[in-house]
């Protein structure tokens, strides 16, 4: 078997090939290591020199790429920030431990927006990540490195985190599958925090089966994370081909050109809705009355928590320390030098929102909006199995086109933030191309409905027949511009 053949396998296929003996763990690791070490997308911030000792387990010998912000013992874990440059933690995040116990091997750490704050991966202290579909464009964020690495075949799969869309949006922009599970399904212990009440780890994979396989090994109830609850039932590998009897709600607030969703993205979305109907699903337009305020609430709550979570980076114990003549100047200079502009912006936003005299008007009110949005979803799921939306309002945009316009950048998360606020699970699957670039279709379900979501996604995936392999060859090769005006959603 050639290295090219080996990396063509999905992770689930690789598991089978390894089990049959068609492939050795060493070969597989070497094939990916070579690609990851030689990549030109800036997707990795660190690549393993050699495969660590592998534990016996169901995923034995399958490499995995891990977003930079997961603490991995002795390995750089910098959360995309200069303030943690070179930081090697003395312990490993629970979710990474879970995967190691399942037999995976750590291939490398992937680039990300600094402290997971961003939608383009341009906020990384280690440079932007390029989208393998078009290197002039962003891969989305904040998990841009993980998403680009999976899309370009630099890793079989990757784990990442989603706070307001940081898994789903880059999955959409890179033409892969990304899932944010129910808040609490996966332990946050060892995940360098952005916004504690929203951060949730999940898989980025080439297909829905891999997403189920990886997620199943990530989930756990962790005594070290009081907010972790695991899942009431184990994740199954999805096998659904039909959507008979499935009721899909299409929220007016999150699916329309008036909401800033590009025509090409809308076209792909509507095409997928027709596919769903053909598979037996019923469709109804519905309302999530408070969803349109989601972004505003999110940009109060997430920065508020971040302003506190990031207070520990003070130069005293670890990471960057800038010289200061006294304590206050040590603090200010370290944080001045260590944090990038977007992080500073959000720390200031959050600090302001929590200040006495402003707390009720900002943080308090945003919490109320959050409760209302959760109620909206709760009521919706009494009538619908799933709520479906386009994942991101646009396809991958040009590098540098939105960096100076934070509001335009924030709108990337318009369709993904409401589920984050509600704490409910959602998946993004690739559902076609617009202008030759992938689009994403989001399926959101009630809390703990991961298996049902994966089944529905699996049925749609089969019918859509999206071919993501065209981004493969572009991971480690000079840029080739994508064909403009490529055909619409494939397989339709």
């Amino acid at each position, binding site marked *: 078997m050639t290295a090219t053949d080996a990396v063509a396998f999905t992770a689930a296929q690789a598991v089978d090939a390894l089990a049959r003996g068609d492939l050795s763990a060493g070969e597989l690791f070497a094939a990916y290591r070579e690609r990851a070490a030689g990549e030109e997308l800036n997707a990795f911030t660190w690549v393993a020199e050699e495969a660590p000792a592998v534990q016996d387990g169901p995923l034995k010998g399958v490499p995995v790429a891990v977003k930079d*912000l*997961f*603490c991995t013992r002795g390995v750089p*874990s910098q*959360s995309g920030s200069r303030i*943690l440059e070179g*930081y090697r*933690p*003395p*312990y490993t*995040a629970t979710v990474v431990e879970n995967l190691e116990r399942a037999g995976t091997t750590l291939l490398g750490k992937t680039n990300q927006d600094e402290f997971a704050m961003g939608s383009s991966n341009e906020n990384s202290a280690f440079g932007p990540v390029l989208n393998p579909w078009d290197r002039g464009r962003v891969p989305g964020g904040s998990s841009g490195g993980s998403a680009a690495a999976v899309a370009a075949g630099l890793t079989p799969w990757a784990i990442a985190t989603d706070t307001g869309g940081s898994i789903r949006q880059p999955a959409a922009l890179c033409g892969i599958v990304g899932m944010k599970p129910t808040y609490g399904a996966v332990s*946050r*212990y*060892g*995940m*360098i*925090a952005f*916004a*504690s*009440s929203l951060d949730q780890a999940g898989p980025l994979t080439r297909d829905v089966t891999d997403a189920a396989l990886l997620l199943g090994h990530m989930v756990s109830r962790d*005594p*070290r*994370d*009081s*907010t972790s609850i695991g899942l009431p039932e184990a994740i199954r590998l999805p096998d659904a081909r039909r959507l008979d009897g499935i009721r899909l709600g299409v929220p007016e607030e999150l699916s329309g050109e008036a909401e800033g969703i590009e025509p090409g993205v809308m076209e792909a979305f509507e095409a997928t809705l027709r596919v769903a109907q053909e598979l037996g699903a019923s469709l109804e337009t519905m309302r999530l009355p408070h969803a349109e305020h989601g972004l505003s609430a999110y940009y109060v709550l997430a920065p*508020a*928590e971040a*302003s*506190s979570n*990031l*207070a*520990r980076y*003070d130069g*005293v*114990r*670890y990471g960057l320390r800038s010289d200061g003549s006294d*304590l206050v100047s040590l*603090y200010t200079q370290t944080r001045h030098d260590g944090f990038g502009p977007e992080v500073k912006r959000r720390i200031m936003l959050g*600090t302001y929102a*929590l*200040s*006495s005299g402003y*707390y009720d008007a900002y*943080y308090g009110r945003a919490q109320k909006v959050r409760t209302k949005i959760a109620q909206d979803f709760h009521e919706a799921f009494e009538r619908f199995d799933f709520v479906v939306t386009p994942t991101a309002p646009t396809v991958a945009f040009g590098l540098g086109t939105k960096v100076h316009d934070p509001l335009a950048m924030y709108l990337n998360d318009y369709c993904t933030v409401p589920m984050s606020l509600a704490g409910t699970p959602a998946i993004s699957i690739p559902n076609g191309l617009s202008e030759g670039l992938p689009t994403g279709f989001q399926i959101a379900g009630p809390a703990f409905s991961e298996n049902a979501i994966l089944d529905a996604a699996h049925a749609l995936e089969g019918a859509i027949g999206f071919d993501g392999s065209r981004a493969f060859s572009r991971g480690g090769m000079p840029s080739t511009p994508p064909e403009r005006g490529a055909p619409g959603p494939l397989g339709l």
Partner: protein
Amino acid sequence: MKYEPVIGLEIHVQLGTRTKMFCGCELTFGEPPNTRTCPVCLGLPGALPVVNARAIHFGLMTGMAMGSELAPRSVFHRKNYFYPDLPKGYQISQYDEPLCLGGRLGDVRIHRVHLEEDAAKLVHVGASGRIHSSSSSVVDFNRGGTPLAEIVTEPDLRSGEQAREWLTLLRTTLRQLGVSDVNMEEGSLRCDANISVRPEGTTELGTKTELKNMNSFRFLERGIRAEVARQIELLESGGEVVQETLHYDPRSERITSMRSKEEAHDYRYFPEPDLVPVRIEQAMLDEARGAMPELPADRAARLEREHGLSEASAKQLAFRAELGDFFEAALGSDGDVPAQPLAHWVTGELVARIGDSDPGDSRVEPVALAALVGMVERKEVNQGGARQALDCLVADGGEPRAIVEAQGLGAIGGEDELSGVIDAALAANADAAAKIQGGNEKPMGAILGYVMRETKGRADGGEVTRLVREKLGV
């Protein structure tokens, strides 16, 4: 004008849990620096807190002891500020939903009791031991994350002495509960006082200052006294008290301002998102209630009621539980010994000999003290002899009757034995005898002195006086 001090206390008590408030590090005192740490209590990126259930249990017991209203759930907030002893940049503490609200201990109303984590220990290298003039500072995170109960009283205290007394009651209560070893020297109890004064007879509160760093019971009393005096002097000289935080230096007895108002913090409290609110289940309440021992105030009332002790004796025994334990053991070992004299011997003579140490650890067996007090009551030994016997018990232990006999400390038994000695004394002091007969009792001392000399102090003074009067027909 006369002024009345108004004092409230804020007490931080380190709870005696096995592990820290939010991580599994063991709590020990005196370990080498930074050897009791983990990612959680070092505030490393990605680490998360988990509430120590034992600390909640201790908090509930403390609230129950004070009759507080117990919160239906335990909720934590983040108190945000930067300081090198605070590795996360925030302290996890309780804010608007303290675990215990209201209540009373002794004469003092309790405002609230809440749980939080302790900061690490900052050691300033340099002569003064304070941050501003030190050349560098080092942090020891062993203490960081220790569970603390912050107990806030209402301003019900009126003097430093009363504050000291009340704090003793609090210490005993917490020790009895077993929630803390409450050792001020090791820093497991720290006390700040909010102090103001007002003209006697008025009810409006004056401007208060917060006095910090009173790390012993003595310094608490002295510090408050000094600050009250400072405020009164200020007001009498036409000045005004400024609201500020003050530092009391026990060595110089000087009070200095710690920080100015401009540096007042906005702590940006918000609910700790890493911890879910925990409902206080009935089972937790039952467990806490089941673990409640008899508390000092209840014990004092019982000692008064059951044994007819004076209020003062009952409190002295109950507020130092080890004395109460010794007293009750002694009482139980000897059905005949009267309670009040026994109480006096425990709180008076015995404490005078063993100080602050636990009489249970001394060589004096409770049954021995009871026997000695019984001998005194039966006049088998006089006070002086009994004190000497107690010296021997404290030094070597043993049985009092044997000591009294061996050392010849026993009282001269009965009239017959004394009679001859008294006759001799009267004969040798004829002048004195005549004066006494004439109604002047002053020379009785001379007669007594003679008898005591002759009996080597074993005679009972009262008995001698009685017999002298009888013989002289007075």
